[in-house]
């Protein structure tokens, strides 16, 4: 497995002009999606990447690491799909395919002891925060060797030893935990930060206002990362969201806000890194709206008939975060196709191994159902 990408290891990436949010690999002519308003725009208050992006050379190690992690997530999810189809997995899972750059870019800006909270669509967050493929897959298959001993499944994977406070089956369920972890870090006098992943749908849960407001008044070290993939289940985001930009809600609560092209892992990294240093310095919370898209249905088994093939195609062709990064690495002479393919193959092997591990791992014995209720 790829080594964990942490901000401590991270060397500066090229400082891009922050308003030019389009990934270099995307042709300018093809960039307008059939629906949705993806144009990145920054609020005046938005933090700027400082510490993390002070030179203008590309850090090859870091790019390779991010590339590898995104491929890992992609292949992991493809195997989850496969495992589901083969009937090896109980319940359901919500795949992260298409959104990899958000988790990977964001978590690359975090230290191992920083916190994240994740969502029902959480596999990508977990892997990006350093979770192991085998224990993840084991959890998804309900095995005792899984992260949660089989008690949580796909929707509740956590690895507290790596600061992953857990996925949540309640849409918006992470706001409280993440903001409370930030309060805790502040009270304990550490410089940890807390990062909350959530969707465009979750942004309509009132608790966003409540926790965001508290983050603002108490200047908490929290970064809210809204994954605006433009749908909540089968419903288009713009049908159920009053404002054009979700990030505007943050400013109205007194938070710094910024909207980002979520398919560009470097852009994501840069903006989150800036938000992280801001939080670590004690300058408070930031809200980042990431424009992204899921390439699969809401969950395994959802045929996603509520959106057009054309729309999907546009996103897959123009906003595949793995392609975009790969092309850029090639362009900058950091990678060539064969090396990229080698990574793909290596990762594929790792994931297949993880699936095999999980398949062969035993189910938890029934009596464990009564354990872990109380400490």
């Amino acid at each position, binding site marked *: 497995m790829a080594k964990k990408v942490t901000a401590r290891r991270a060397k500066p990436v090229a400082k891009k002009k922050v308003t030019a949010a389009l990934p270099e690999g995307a042709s300018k002519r093809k960039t307008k999606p059939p629906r949705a308003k993806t144009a990145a725009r920054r609020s005046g208050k938005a933090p700027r990447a400082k510490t993390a992006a002070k030179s203008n050379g590309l850090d090859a190690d870091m790019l390779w690491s991010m590339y590898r992690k995104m491929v890992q997530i992609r292949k992991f999810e493809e195997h989850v799909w496969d495992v589901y189809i083969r009937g090896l997995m109980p319940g359901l899972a919500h795949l992260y395919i298409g959104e990899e750059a958000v988790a990977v870019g964001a978590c690359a800006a975090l230290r191992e002891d920083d916190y994240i909270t994740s969502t029902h669509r959480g596999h990508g967050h977990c892997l990006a925060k350093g979770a192991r493929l085998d224990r993840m897959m084991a959890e998804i298959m309900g095995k005792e060797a899984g992260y949660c001993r089989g008690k949580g*499944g796909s929707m509740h994977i956590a690895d507290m030893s790596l600061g992953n406070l857990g996925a949540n*089956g309640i849409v918006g369920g992470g706001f409280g935990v993440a903001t409370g972890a930030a309060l805790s870090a502040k009270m304990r006098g550490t410089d940890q930060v807390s990062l909350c992943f959530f969707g465009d749908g979750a942004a309509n849960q009132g608790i966003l206002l409540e926790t965001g407001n508290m983050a603002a008044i108490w200047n908490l070290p929290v970064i809210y990362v809204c994954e605006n993939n433009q749908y909540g289940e089968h*419903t288009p985001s713009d049908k159920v969201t009053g404002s054009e930009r979700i990030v505007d809600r943050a400013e109205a609560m007194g938070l710094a806000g910024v909207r980002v092209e979520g398919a560009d892992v470097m852009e994501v990294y840069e903006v989150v890194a800036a938000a992280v240093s801001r939080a670590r310095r004690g300058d408070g919370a930031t809200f980042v709206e990431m424009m992204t898209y899921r390439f699969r249905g809401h969950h395994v088994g959802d045929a996603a008939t509520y959106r057009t093939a054309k729309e999907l195609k546009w996103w897959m062709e123009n906003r595949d975060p793995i392609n975009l990064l790969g092309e850029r690495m090639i362009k900058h002479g950091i990678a060539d196709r064969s090396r990229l393919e080698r990574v793909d193959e290596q990762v594929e092997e790792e994931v297949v191994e993880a699936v095999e591990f999980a398949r062969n791992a035993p189910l938890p014995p029934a009596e464990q159902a*009564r354990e872990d*209720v109380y400490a």
Partner: protein
Amino acid sequence: MAEITYREAVIQAMSEEMRRDDAVFLIGEDVGPSGGIFKCSEGLFDEFGAARVIDAPISEAGYIGLSVGAAVTGMRPIAELMFGDFSLLTMDQIVNQAAKIRYMTGGQCRVPLTIRTTMGAGRSSAAQHSQSLHALFAHIPGLKVALPSCPRDAKGLLKTAIRDDNPVLVFEGKMMYNDKGPVPEEEYTIPFGVAEVKRAGDDCTIIAVSSMVGLALEAAQTLSREDEISVEVVDPRTLVPLDEETLVESVRKTGYALIVDEASLRYGVTGELAALVTEAAFDYLDAPVKRIGAANVPIPFSPTLEGAAIPHSETIVDAVRALRGKIRR
């Protein structure tokens, strides 16, 4: 009678009532064009349009709140909460507002609000998508609570709920959506507060709700076949109002009672039902009333664990055997 699924019964109830009364509308997450995650509103959007089949934002407290406001001003909302677990986000609206506004204002308004939600484990959906939370609502004065256990009841009770001028929570057993059963072709409703004897018997009463009724009927067959114990299965159908009489009558007749609910046992509805029938049938009871519920644990994900946490028909069989084996001095 036609055989239809529990899901179809729910859809029929809503569509019939929406045809009958313009004031009835449906609001919930993804209930519109997509027909709902459980496909329980399929066809409604096409027939009644966006104005009466409303896709809500993921704002459960908010849209239940709106439904209360709509209900007191002339509409008859059906609000869907996809998973019963999400009702926890709306407790203030249901308990502090919907249940009390009529009383607090001295009877100045009616609250014809139906909240449809789901209950039950068994799908490996883990702790936040598997709860059976009807006890929380049954405890609150001002609310009514219905738990249909078969397609016929699903339709009849939901129609009654929609016509009721009070806030009603209808808990649909999500494991039953595909179950088929006979449903009258002609228009009907099922009154609240009328229990049904789902199977008659002499040796032991099982009081069961929701999908536990099916398990109890299965268990009754086994017990009849293997033990020659004749079990009577009674389904209260509504917890509030409650048909105490039918329950008590059955227990007085059989002298033994087992109460089965899928929620976690502790401080759930089985305690109340046991206490009620014990008090009213004390002198007829040959053994203390027994109760079965889920283990007092959050519902776990893995099938081996989940299976260990919830009641099965074998659990019921064993309990009745133990109960009948224990003869009172």
